[in-house]
């Protein structure tokens, strides 16, 4: 592996981990800034219950601003979702202009409200498991997401959420 490819892989890893921090902290605009103009985001799963591939959410970059801007108008829990991510693979194209990465992640929920706050506040619960399948456009030191497919292995969401995975 060339030093240049090694450096690009390192930039991709930093981008994925930065996205994890932004999403954990609900810094939605910082997350959007990491995405290129043609970025596509989706949450998908395979359901053995109905033996089908299912889509739970699809957003373009253009749709992400109003999606996040409307959050304060909606009721939701105040129990943050956080990720633990491990990057499994990063593959850089031969010309060094694009890359793909696979990242395993789990999400936990810090219970504050949502069920009985006096009982459960302070507890953490496993929320879902999944893998991110990411694609990037690389221009020098700039690494931008062009696609994120969050493939989850969870179909039981109980109350659900308004926050992306």
């Amino acid at each position, binding site marked *: 592996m060339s030093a240049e490819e090694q450096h690009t892989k390192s930039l991709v890893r930093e981008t994925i981990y930065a996205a994890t921090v932004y999403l954990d902290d609900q810094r939605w605009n910082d997350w959007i800034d990491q995405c290129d103009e043609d970025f596509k985001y989706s*949450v998908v799963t395979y*359901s*053995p*219950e*109905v*033996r*089908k591939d*299912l*889509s*739970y*959410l*699809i957003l373009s970059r253009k*749709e992400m601003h*109003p*999606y996040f*801007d*409307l959050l304060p*108008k*909606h*009721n*939701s*829990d105040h129990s943050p979702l956080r990720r633990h991510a491990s990057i499994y693979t990063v593959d850089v194209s031969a010309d060094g202009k694009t890359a793909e990465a696979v990242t395993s992640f789990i999400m936990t929920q810090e219970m504050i409200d*949502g*069920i*009985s706050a006096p009982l459960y506040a302070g507890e953490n619960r496993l929320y879902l498991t999944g893998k991110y399948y990411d694609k990037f456009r690389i221009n020098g030191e700039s690494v931008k997401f062009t696609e994120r497919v969050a493939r989850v292995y969870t*179909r*039981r*969401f*109980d*109350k*659900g*959420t*308004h*926050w*992306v*995975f």
Partner: protein
Amino acid sequence: MPARNHKQWTAKPDLELGEWVDSRIYSDEEIFEEELEKLWKKSWIALCHESELPEPYDFRTAIIAREPIIIVRGPDNKIRAFLNVCPHRGMTIERRPSGSFAPAQPSGNPKHMTCLFHAWQFDMKGNCVDIPRQKEGYQDRLDKSSQGLRALRCEVKYGGFVWVCLDDHTEFNVETWTAGAMDCIKDSIDAEPLELIHYHKAIIDCNYKLWHDTNSEFYHDYMHYHNRITGFNDEYFQRECSAFDNGHVNVGTFTVNYEEYDVAEDRGTLSFPNLPPDNWYMVDMFPGLNFNLRGSVVRMDLMTPLSANQVMIEFRGFGLKSDSAEDRAHRIQHHNSIWGPLGRNLHEDLIGVAGQGVTMTPKSEPRRILHGRHEGAYIHDEIGMRHFYETWGKKMDRLPSDPEQKYRPGKVVGPEMPPAKGLSTFAGKVA
């Protein structure tokens, strides 16, 4: 009145019988067990959709009132339902949620249901077709011909939903059970074959009836910014709630203004056949099943009560089998934007009932739950819940407002009045 003391708090409300219920009906374990016997084992329940079993030998498993059920499509293309219980030792015959019996299993032949424990095999009509070493073990005392599965009444009806009833002697078929409640959507969902496009589930620590109540009343639309901004006009307040025999209710339609919500897409061009563009009907089937036809998608909520204070809700979405890939993608987006696990409305509804479940745990202090809004049977009238609990009271022979007493009729229908207009007392639309 300022905050109340205990006597005031627990006093009978200044409402008529039928306009409130006692919270014990949502939390008492004895009542819950009685409901399973008197309601759930006597009702027709739509457990899945025919598109979940598209091929011969496909199966789907489900539960009604703790009884495990398997639904199979036979080589004759007929869908049948059985208890998912081996007559030998009571093992669950099929453990997966869905699949196909066409391939061989580790201890079973292709095209058979096989109990893996001792390899008893059954055909798709429920006949026991093989008992290993039958003659050696049972001599002439027991024969496979007497060891068929327990067959259940099963019909495919209304858009291809698979309905099952545990009561062999029920006086109803699906059509008479639904008693006209499905008429408002049947021309739309029967126009052409439907196909499942969405599935996820929730297990919530609340009584199943609290979810049914939420689907039966629209006064809670104040909780949903999406519904306030796309509805809450004069036409919305003219939506009528209609009651039907056997405890069912439906809610009439209006035109949803999806363009009022920034990230919503108009559904007019993809609205279901025989449905005016962007219209929305809701059907609530006793004791715990809901159909929601909202423009371009149908949603079905199936409740499986797990205990007095816990329910599993399975959320299914449907489009048209004939959809192009592009149309299907739009339908899925329409569904998910409000009803998916990340959707705007479903999350809010579930927060509501989860919060009710916290206050109504078994043995918690009984309190009054009010169902007393009268608005001429229009959208914010609580007639849907009152009708449900009148039926509940009759079938349970318990008084919903004091479940230790025998049933007696309460007030369901209020005075006639014109539909409400506008939002004079609520500023939420401009928030």
